[in-house]
């Protein structure tokens, strides 16, 4: 039951993000969605991830988002203009996209309807890694290489952001 509450919060939150016309409301809805997600993590017996989700995403990153949105003073989207100019409102695109979305929904329903007898997911094979100490141990043993590669990934992202955003030299 709790699962449906949290999952519903997450889905409705993310739906609101894309449908709101005022970007500030979008950001707030995204925070609500993140809270729903972190509730799901708690249900999955991963309290550390849940806390990190709140602190880092809902806390730090979303505050930055909110600052940027407010500082840039992004204007409200003009509904009429949006309807006319946006490619998503072309009838052909809507029809094809709608058909594809329907197909995806059908496939998902098919897959879910046949998984009832599956059982035995990951939890049966792996003892839950929930404590921070245990998580740290796993991170620096089994996943050490992945952890180190992430540093190169972040380095590239940083260098790339600087290249694309810095002022042109005269």
């Amino acid at each position, binding site marked *: 039951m709790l699962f449906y509450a949290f999952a519903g919060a997450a889905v409705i939150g993310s739906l609101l993000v894309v449908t709101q016309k005022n970007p500030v409301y979008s950001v707030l809805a995204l925070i609500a969605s993140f809270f729903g997600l972190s509730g799901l993590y708690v249900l999955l017996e991963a309290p550390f991830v849940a806390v990190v989700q709140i602190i880092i995403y809902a806390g730090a990153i979303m505050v930055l988002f909110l600052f940027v949105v407010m500082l840039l003073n992004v204007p409200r989207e003009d509904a009429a203009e949006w309807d006319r100019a946006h490619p998503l409102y072309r009838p052909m695109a809507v029809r094809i996209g709608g058909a594809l979305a329907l197909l995806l929904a059908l496939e998902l329903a098919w897959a879910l309807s*046949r998984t009832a007898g599956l059982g035995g997911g990951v939890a049966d*094979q792996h003892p839950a890694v929930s404590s921070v100490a245990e998580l740290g141990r796993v991170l620096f043993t089994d996943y050490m290489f992945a952890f180190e590669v*992430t540093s190169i990934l972040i380095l*590239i992202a940083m*260098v*790339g952001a600087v290249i694309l955003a810095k002022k*042109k030299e005269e």
Partner: protein
Amino acid sequence: MISSSFDAIIPMLCVALAGLVVLLAEAFRGRDEKMPIGGLAIIGLVGAGAASILLWNRNATSFGVVTADNFSLFVNLVLIGVGILTVMFSSQTIERDGIPAGEYYAVMLFGIVGMMLMGQATDLLVIFLALETMSLAVYVLTGIRREQQQSTEAAFKYFLLGAFASSFFLYGVAFLYGVTGSTSLDRIGTVIAAQSMSGNPMILLGVGLLIVGFAFKVAAVPFHMWSPDAYEGAPAVVTGFMSTGVKAAAVAAFVRVFLSSLEPMITDWAPVLWLIAAATMVLGTVVGVAQTSLKRMLAYSSIAHGGYLLAGLVAGNDVGKAAILFYLAAYALTNLGAFGVIALLGTRERANDDLRDYAGLFKSHPALAVLMTFFLLSLGGFPPTAGFIAKWYVFSAAIGSGYYGLAIIGVLSSVVSVFFYLRIVVMMFMTDRDARPVPAPITTVAYAGLVLSLAGVLYLGVLPTAVIDFAQASISTIF
């Protein structure tokens, strides 16, 4: 359980180190000081090549998630070749276009690290990280000419679509993890083989999502939409780099995942990939015929080439695996050479990549015209060049597995593709040039790069046995 040996990652470490050195060199460079930054990049790449050759036949593994088997070492050598040639072509064009050298080479080298890791990783999580490392580098390189609207637009489109594709890939990894309890390819393979999971909808969903992620990176139909825009908007050298490097890395990981751990399910995914391969070959060729921009045309041509590579994957036999490796080497040399010529003919203001810009090229730049002709013939698959042997090898693999239809579609589409390759050749040799901006004279380094790729193309075309043996030895140790 965890081997902490560093052997298998030495090639990557060489390139990553070179990237850091390049970045630092740029940081400490005086405002007008000249530095041979491209040279530093080449030193790192050559070191990685030497390390790859030394690791040959050793089957080293590191940290349990990276392997240096002969398959990945072959791919490494191809990628290193791509890197060295790209640096040689870049030496002229980045100065001309005012691209900051240090950042450019650093991002390129880190991108190569990601590509090498794609081929070497044996864990889906690490493959994902490698995919992201490679992709981020290429997004940045695509948009590195910020003052050009087209370049920025291309980078933005590529970034948005690429992020979506990555999330599909990650979702697929999550499903496979959910069913098998592991992200390691070996474990997944064992679990799937032991429990005959092929009817399990969760695993089918996971495999389908993985196909989406990989097909996007290979630019296979229907996930090819980004590539004409991205290839046209990026600087020509970068286009050459990403159309060969990214494709080689993605195909290598594709082959490793689908022909090792997902091999027990080959009857499930082979029909899907059959369709994708056929559609990719046909669409890449047919739409390519209608293009007037040379870069865009070669973008569609490289989509079609992705289809030929997938045909080898569908075949799934030993010939097919070796054929894919040979095809990657041949295609990398040829396509880089062709984009190198385009890059060298551009000027800062104009890319000069319209078909009409090539009218009468033989009169103004006879050497470039001849080089370009060889590259185009190889792309089309004419006999004395690498492209012929590569295509022949892939199609014979498809026939060997009984996929006659796929082989016929492939042969027909390469016959059609000859039309648009030859159209450029005719343009270059038989029409006159009207007044157009003449590009700067071409430096020795860039010429050497072109000659080097031509030598490779002809070597693979005339004396392919050595490399074919090499490719066969590469696949014999795994799978």
